[in-house]
């Protein structure tokens, strides 16, 4: 049995006969994937694969179009690949300025006990380029208005706009990662968004396995 794993900073997506999503801190130490990408993947796998290459291969496997932009919004970063006429054109990985944005949404939902899927996207968001700075904006807003839901919605809108700008203001994007399950985030991006779920990189690893390792 071949084990594929995308070890995210906070969540790991693993296919080892079954399909699992587990907190990265709770992944048993004895799990060594055959093919893996992500956080600490060099130490937890026999074959480490660059995340952008896994994303790219996952996109080619799942998207039946020659032109596409595929964006992965992780716990702490934003990555994308752009294809035109079936050929790779561009890639980007915003690790520093995209710091902890996905993780911040998750933390805030838990702390305030708010389900983002119930919220409507606001017209404007905060100018958020970093999760930590964004959190301080939320606290300021709540002190001012007492409206936790509106503050969180503005934060999510800000992150959505940051993703949109970072990827070059596209007309359409395919989305990968945990935020595919966040309706507020998806509807806050001002273009067509097609969510592909959390296993895009793992699908990419499977493709690389089929083709022979890169």
């Amino acid at each position, binding site marked *: 049995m071949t084990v594929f794993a995308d070890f995210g900073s906070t969540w790991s997506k693993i296919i080892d006969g079954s399909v699992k999503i587990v907190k990265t801190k709770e992944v048993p130490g004895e799990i060594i994937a055959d093919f893996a990408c992500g956080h600490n993947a060099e130490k937890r796998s026999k074959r480490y694969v*660059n*995340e*952008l*290459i896994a994303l*790219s291969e996952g996109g080619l496997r799942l998207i039946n179009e020659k032109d596409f932009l595929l964006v992965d919004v992780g716990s702490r*970063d934003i990555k994308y*690949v752009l294809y035109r006429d079936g050929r*790779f*054109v*561009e*890639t*980007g*990985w*915003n*690790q*520093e300025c995209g710091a902890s944005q996905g993780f911040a949404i998750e933390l805030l939902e838990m702390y305030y006990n708010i389900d983002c899927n119930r919220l409507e996207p606001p017209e404007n968001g905060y100018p958020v380029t970093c999760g930590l700075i964004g959190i301080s904006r939320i606290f300021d807003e709540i002190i001012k208005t007492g409206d936790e839901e509106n503050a969180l919605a503005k934060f999510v809108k800000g992150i959505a706009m940051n993703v949109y700008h970072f990827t070059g203001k596209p007309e359409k994007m395919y989305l990968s990662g945990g935020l595919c399950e966040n309706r507020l985030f998806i509807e806050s991006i001002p273009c067509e968004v097609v969510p592909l779920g959390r296993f895009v990189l793992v699908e990419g690893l499977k493709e690389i396995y089929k083709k022979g390792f*890169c």
Partner: protein
Amino acid sequence: MKVGFVGHPPNDIIEKYRSEELIDLDNDLGQVEEKSDLYLPKISCSVIKRVFNNSLAFRPQKIIFDVGEGKCDSGRFLSWILKDLFNIDIIETRNQNRKGSGTIICDSRLPLREKFDLILNNIIDNKDYELEREPHPSAGFWSVPCWDTRIFDLFPEGTRIFGWTRCFENGTPDDLEIECYVEKDIPTVFYAQTFCSKNLLAKNLARVYRGLYVDCDGRLTTSVKAQIEAFLYLRGTSG
């Protein structure tokens, strides 16, 4: 006598000091005390910080400082700071040479790291090289000399060098035409130090030539490394 230099000063001035101990202050000269945080803004590029730190650590008797368009405004201002605030004897130069000496190292089959070493040492250890040209380079690298040289190891042998480093080898550091020369069929990474104005060129040349634009503040980050690896792989370049 220790004589430092910054950028690529004109050859005739370097020749005057050839018998002295020449020190390239742009280069990594080993670990030195970092005083730049005290005197320079945080948004100074890593190479400018390095020049400052090296200058104070090695205290050359003179520094030949190229302050023309072949370096940058930050360099020009740093020259003034070292001269007026730190009492270092500065010889300011503006290298406007247009008699190119060729780019045999940039175009050779050597590994990228070796190319940079030869080019950057060629002012101190001036030699003519006979190197075989790589006719079909699988990658290109447009850049200034990088603060973190680990970036060179990401590229295949024979990677062609473009940008200011090409101007440097040619002995024409302010020749914008050569700086913007790129071969369109070679997948090229356009690299600039964060906070360097060459980012303007890097981003736009990358757009025009379908290359990868990256900037890095000092140390090579995981994301920049991954982007370069992925770009070279996805554009069919073997590493």
